[in-house]
Structures are given as C-alpha cells and as structure tokens.
C-alpha cells in the first residue's frame, strides 16, 4: 500500500501547542495567519499531497527520469502534476508578496513541505531547489534579475537549480574550477562541468534558471574566489520570454539507489562557445551567498528525514494492522491475529512513531524560531532565536535524516519478507532516505559545524541556554506529581540532559586543544543533542496533553501522546548515555591506528 495521509492532527498540535503558532501569527507580516486559515491550508495541501503526488511516488520510482542524449523526460504524470502544483499556487507559499508570493511564515511552510516530501520526495526536490534559487536572487540579485526571474519562479512557471558540485569539488567547494569570463557588457561566459544537479534538466517547464558557482579569471584561490551567476537554460528576449537556447547541456543523468524520478544531471556549460550568465551580488562572494541559503536547504533536507519516517511508519502500520500471522502471545489455541498484536511489532511501530513525532516537534519549533529570527521587531529576540536556529539546523538535518534511514529500515522489518520485495513499496522509502544523510552536507559536515562553529566557537552559550530550558521542563515534570508515566519521563529526561551536558563540557574543553579528538565524537554528539532535544519536546508534549485531558478533553490524541512520550523516554532517550560515553571516551580507539594498520 502506498497511500499517504498527512498527520494533520499531530501537525496542528505541534504548531499550536509546541511551536507557538499564535505567537508566530503576531509577528509583523503574519497578520493574516490564523488557526482557521492554517487548518484550511493543511487540509488542501493534504488533499493535493495524497491525491496527486502520493500516487505518483511508486510509478516514479519504477519508471524514473529518462535521458535521451540531451533532453530529460520526467516520469509519467510528472509534468501534469507539476503544472497542477504550480497552478494551485503552492510554489509561492512562503515567497515574498512583492514577487507574487503569499509570504506565509516558515512554520506553515514547513508543515506543508513535510506533506510534499512524504507524499513524493523525488517530486518535492524540484520546488525545493527552485526555492533555493528564489532566495538567492531575492537576497543578492540585481533589480533586473529580480524582475526577470522572480515572478516566473515564484509562480512555478520556471524552475531553478543550484550548481555547486563538480567532479573534483564535492564537500570541498574550494576546488570549484568552472570559469566565468566577463564579456564587457555586464554578461559573463561560463565554461565548465557541474555534476549532481537536481532537476538540472527536465520537460516540465519552458525555462530553467541555473544558479552556478564559477571563478572569475583574476579570482583568488580557494573559497574566497568563487562567484555566483544566473544562467538560464533559454536566454530571455527583450519582453522577458524565453528566447535562444543557452550553451548549457545535460550530458547525462545518474542511475541512483533512490529518488529515481528526480533527474540528477551532469550539466556542461560552454561546450559551444560559452553559456551566458549574469553575476549575482558581488564578485568572489558566491560561496558566502550559498551559505546563507545553506541553512534553508539543510533544514529542508532534515524535513525529508521527518517526512520519509512518517511515510514509512504509515506504510508499516497499515501492514501490521492488516497482516494476520500467528496467535496472540500467551493465548493457547486462540484465533490468528494481525501482527500488530505481537509485542516486538508494537515496539518497532512505537519506535518509528515516537521518533518521527519527536523529529517533527524539533523541526517545527526550529521553524517557528526562524520566523521570530526574521520578523520579530526586537533585535535581541531576533538574535536569540537566530542563535537557536543556527545551533539546531545541523541537528534537524543530521539527526532526522540518520533516523529516517533506521526508521525506513524498521518499516521494512515490520513487513518481514514482504518488505524485502519491491512490490510492497516499503523498500522504496529505505532507498529514498539513503541520500538524505549525504546531500546538502553529509552528517559529518553537519556535526563538524555543530561542534565547531555552533558550539565551541561561541563557548557553548546557546547550547547551555538550551540545556537550562530543558531543565525547566524537568522541573515542570517534577511538579506534575506521581503519575507513573511522568515519573518515567522525568527520570529519563533528567539523565539524558546530564549526559548531554557532559558531552558539551568535553567538546568545549577539547575542541581548541585537540580538534581531531573532539571531531571523532561529532556525529555521536549531534545524535545526542537530537535525542535529548526530542526528549525535551516530547516531555513538553506530554505536559500539554496532560493539561488538556485535565481540562476535560476527550480527544484520544492527548492520551496517545502521553504514551508515546513515555515510550520515547524509555526506549529512545536512554541512548543518550551511550552516545555521551562515546563522545567523551571515543577518540583514542578511533585515531590510534596508522593508515597501514587498517
């Protein structure tokens, strides 16, 4: 079964009761936002995701995008779905109203994005990359570039791409070799080859706007010598319509483990005299601009982790309720039961569910902080929120995506032998999830950013503030009295926080004097922060739920949430101890061997 229904109730809960939708709605520029409007948007996005995008997920995986020597044909149904997607206005959700966007807050955009990604990750990459391009042009483009490209990209009429990677320049973008030669008329000729360009070529729109990193002739070596250019697939006529074909060709597409329907292109610029482009912002500052967008992109990939986990969970849950196998444990000669009755299947499902909910909670809370960081009238509030966002984005990205692989794998396990068979569809989620820990910066790159720039460099100010906030929740749990679930959650969260604190102290003490030793523990540290932050938010969720129940709510959702939070506290949060141990003690074993000894 490959149906998908957005978990709207949990999305609403997280938005309203954990991420502070009401507060976001009070921010300047968000005046139109209300719970009603958000519900209507979620409802309609869910209809589109489940009705249009989800049914194409599997056929897209099977058919894939096809390259015929120059053009790329997207999978059957893709072109029509994209047209509908753009016509429905979804591409414009969070874009600036000045260029036709709706200017909705990131919190709302995040929930909607989760639906696109869960319904059809391969499809969702196209609008995601377009958004990156829109943002680059919005932030640093010239007025001419804005006028020429933004309305068309915001409306979805044209799509955008990000051209960073080259064969020799992957994680290390300092090695970019693509050249840009000024023509003296304000344009540049671009020469070089880019790889791994998502939706670099396709048949869904009549133009594609490439943003390309390249070096000017006199540029300094390394990261400070890279500039950013806009290079459209079709040059624009005087009236702004697509005209002559630019000298950028798709020379092949990759055959991948997953996301088959998303064309991953090799683009050749300038094989026939030079691709014409224009400079974005100032010379030699391209990488800096890319980093502005990097946070967005990393967050979006983190959402892929959340989304795929949700999809894999729904898939496994449906199967577990349906598949009859064996009798209930402890019942002799009883009737055959569906496998959801078996304790280990339950454990697997709860593990999938509780982690997915924790990841969603963290991502949405970060999204709301991002809104405050951009829109709050008070500069101090903006700065405080920005620091929290900066700290947590590597976690949203790294933790959610690493988890999604495990969760999708657990989803296969729930299916037993049927899960290993492609026809069942569970395997696709596992294959699709596998890229998420790699692109937009591998988990190690996220983790290095987290322990270096986001923790050690600022002396742990932000992370310590977060730990203090978490301790506040422990205190609230303490006030809650002796209810068993809350005692368990409190105990587990308290020791999780202590484990995190020990790891933070180690990183702060070690990073400056032995960066390698600190870095061995970087990925465990990232997971540790993710797990404890997830525990903190699940505990908050349990507290809110308990309050709602006490107020008389009969909504099963709240009771379920308390149980889910308790499962998380008992099964997931205890991993914090092990991770903290590895952070603090793990360097010696990892670094001691000579290369020859491997």
């Amino acid at each position, binding site marked *: 079964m490959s149906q998908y229904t957005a978990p709207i109730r949990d999305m609403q809960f997280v938005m309203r009761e954990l991420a502070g939708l009401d507060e976001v709605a009070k921010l300047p520029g968000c005046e139109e936002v209300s719970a009603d409007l958000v519900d209507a948007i979620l409802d309609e996005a869910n209809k589109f995701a489940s009705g249009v995008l989800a049914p194409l997920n599997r056929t897209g995986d099977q058919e894939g995008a096809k390259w015929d020597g120059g053009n790329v044909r997207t999978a059957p149904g893709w072109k029509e779905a994209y047209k509908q997607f753009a016509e429905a206005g979804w591409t414009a959700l969070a874009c600036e109203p000045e260029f036709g966007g709706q200017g909705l807050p990131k919190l709302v955009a995040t929930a909607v994005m989760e639906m696109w990604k869960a319904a059809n990750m391969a499809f969702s990459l196209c609008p995601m990359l377009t958004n990156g391009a829109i943002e680059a042009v919005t932030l640093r483009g010239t007025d001419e570039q804005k006028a020429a490209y933004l309305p068309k990209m915001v409306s979805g009429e044209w799509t955008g791409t990000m051209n960073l990677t080259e064969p020799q320049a992957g994680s290390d973008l300092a090695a970019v070799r693509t050249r840009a030669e000024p023509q003296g008329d304000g344009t540049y000729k671009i020469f070089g080859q880019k790889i791994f360009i998502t939706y670099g070529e396709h048949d869904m729109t009549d133009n594609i706007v490439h943003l390309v990193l390249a070096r000017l002739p006199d540029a300094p070596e390394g990261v400070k010598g890279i500039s950013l250019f806009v290079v459209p697939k079709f040059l624009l006529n005087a009236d702004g319509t697509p005209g002559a074909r630019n000298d950028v060709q798709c020379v092949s597409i990759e055959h991948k483990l997953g996301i088959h329907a998303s064309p991953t292109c090799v683009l050749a610029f300038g094989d026939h005299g030079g691709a014409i482009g224009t400079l974005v912002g100032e010379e030699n500052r391209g990488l800096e601009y890319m980093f502005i967008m990097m946070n967005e992109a990393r967050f979006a990939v983190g959402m892929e982790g959340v989304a795929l986990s949700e999809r894999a969970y729904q898939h496994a849950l449906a199967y577990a309720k349906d598949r009859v196998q064996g009798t209930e444990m402890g019942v002799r000669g009883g009737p055959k039961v569906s496998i959801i009755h078996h304790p280990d299947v339950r454990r697997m499902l709860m593990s999938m569910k509780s982690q997915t909910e924790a990841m969603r909670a963290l991502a949405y809370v970060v999204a709301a902080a991002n809104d405050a960081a951009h829109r709050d009238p008070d500069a101090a509030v903006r700065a405080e929120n920005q620091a929290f966002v900066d700290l947590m984005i590597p976690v949203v990205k790294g933790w959610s995506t690493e988890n999604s692989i495990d969760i999708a794998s657990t989803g296969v396990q729930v299916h037993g032998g*049927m899960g290993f068979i492609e026809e069942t569809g569970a395997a696709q989620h596992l294959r699709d999830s596998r890229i998420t820990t790699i692109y937009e910066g591998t988990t190690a790159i996220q983790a290095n950013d987290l322990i270096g720039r986001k923790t050690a460099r600022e002396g742990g100010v932000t992370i310590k503030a977060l730990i203090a906030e978490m301790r506040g929740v422990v205190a609230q749990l303490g006030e809650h009295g002796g209810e068993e679930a809350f005692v368990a959650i409190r105990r587990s969260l308290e020791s999780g926080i202590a484990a995190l604190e020990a790891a933070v102290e180690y990183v702060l003490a070690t990073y400056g004097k032995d960066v390698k030793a600190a870095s061995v523990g970087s990925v465990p540290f990232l997971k540790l922060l993710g797990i404890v932050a997830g525990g903190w938010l699940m505990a908050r969720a349990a507290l809110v739920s308990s309050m709602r129940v006490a107020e008389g709510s009969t909504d099963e959702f709240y009771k379920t949430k308390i149980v889910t939070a308790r499962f998380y506290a008992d099964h997931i949060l205890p991993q914090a101890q092990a991770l903290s141990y590895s952070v603090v003690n793990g360097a010696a074993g990892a670094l001691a061997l000579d290369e020859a000894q491997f």
Partner: protein
Amino acid sequence: MAILVIAEHDNASLKAATLNTVSAAAKLGSEIHVLVAGANCAAAAADVAKVAGVTKVRVADAAHYDSQTAENVAALVVANASGYSHILAPSTANGKNVAPRVAALLDVAQISDVTGIESADTFVRPIYAGNAMATVKSSDAVKVMTVRTTAFEAAGQGGAAAVEAVAAGPDLGLASVKGRELTKSARPELGAAKIIVSGGRGLGNSENYHKLLEPLADALGAALGASRAAVDAGYVPNDYQVGQTGKIVAPQLYIAVGISGAIQHLAGMKDSKVIVAINKDPEAPIFQVADYGLVGDLFEVVPELVKAVG
C-alpha cells in the same frame, strides 16, 4: 391501514425490484396495494396483479406518466395517499427520485434504504456506506421509505389482485425526458460492477485469460479484473488491476480465478459481498477469504461454470 407500494416498471413489464419491496411490505403485516403509474402500462399492471401478497393494483394510465417523472408521480402518490400507513418504493434510481418528494409533500420524514423491519414504525438501515446499521423509529403518521432490494426475498407469483384505475393527476409540465441510453451488452466498469471476474497467473498467458474469462464475464454481466501478477505478466493492461496498487472494489460477487491471494490483492477486494475462489492449490491464501472455494483445474471448471450460468 393498508400499505402502498410504488411499482418499478417500464410500462411493458414489472421490474424485479418491486417483488422485493412487496416482501418488505408484507413484513408490515397489512393489506398491500401497488400503484402503477405509466402510459399504456396495462401489461405491467397485469404483472403486478399476479404477485403473491398484493391485494389491489391501482393503475394511473396517462401519457404524462410515460417516463414517470418524479414531479408528476409524486403528485399522484400524494393525491392517493390517504388511508395508507406506509408508502414504499424500492431503492432504485426511480424510487430514490420519487420517495423523498412524496415525503416532503406529506410533511413527513423519509427512511432510505431499509434493510430490516422491526415493527410498523421501527426500521434498520445502513449508514456510513454500510459501516454501521442504524435502527430508527418514525414518529410520523405516514412512513415513506425506500427498500434495499437485496435485503428482502422476492415475492412469489400466484396472486390475483384486483386491478382498478386511478384518476390521473394533471401534467405539471415541469420536466420532460428527452431520451434514455441504456447500456446492454458492454461490460460494466470495474469500479461500478456488481459482479467481477478476476484472473491471476494461474491462467498461464494472455490468450487463456481472454479465452476463458470473457465468456464467463459475459454470461454473468460482469466486469473483468486481474491480479497484479497477471498484469505484470502482461496478460491484460494495468487498468484491470485489482489490489492495493490497482482498483479497490466491493462488488456483490467477486470470482477469483487462478489468483493465489497475495495480500496486496486481498486488500483490493476483501470488502466484496461474496467471494468465490477457484484455484488448484488448496493451500492458496485466497481460500481464507472466500465464501465459496472450489479447488480444481480452472481450465475445466471455468467452461463448466459458463455453461451452468449461461
């Protein structure tokens, strides 16, 4: 008080749905009158007179009842409603068209799709697409209802009811039927079919699929479906596919021929009312969901079945 049944007919003959409705009326325990509104509908009225349990046939024969528009028929029913405790119509397109109109004109509720009669004022009917059964009690003086025909036996023959003419009402002139296109021979659509004959890999190849299953489908007026395996093997196009990744169906009768019963297939058809499985493997999982299982060689069984139902 007597019960009035609105006859379902095409002037030339009575439709079977009326027989089930008469059986439902009989459970209410009163005298049963049947109203035949039509044009040149004496033949249909004569059919009604022979239905066991009917005591009186009331015939309104006029040109403007030819196509039995709801506006004219409802007005006629209301004009003749006095003295009846219950007014029944079958849950057919016609019955559903007319009965609510009658009820509103009488200022009473209408009870739709009745599947059970508990007493003269208490009825059982499906709600939420049959996922729940509601027992409802009417406080109205006249109970107007439509009857789900599959829930009641057809009334037998052997009656000899009196046939009397009823004065036709005026032609309200609000609606006129311009034409009807009735599908006769074409196979029904999978999603809408009452009977589906579905084939799996047990058929061996495309030629066998068509050679064996088409005559059976035609004999039963059934739609044709297929398992994922049969589609993957190229026997039939993908739009035949029943299952999780194909169409979800719930016909009255689902005949699975040479289908082993993979979970993904079962998910697409397990809500069928009656499931028949024909398979040579007695252990095939399809038998766990089948109401009637026949273990045997489908190459012999299917032609035999065509003869038996043809």
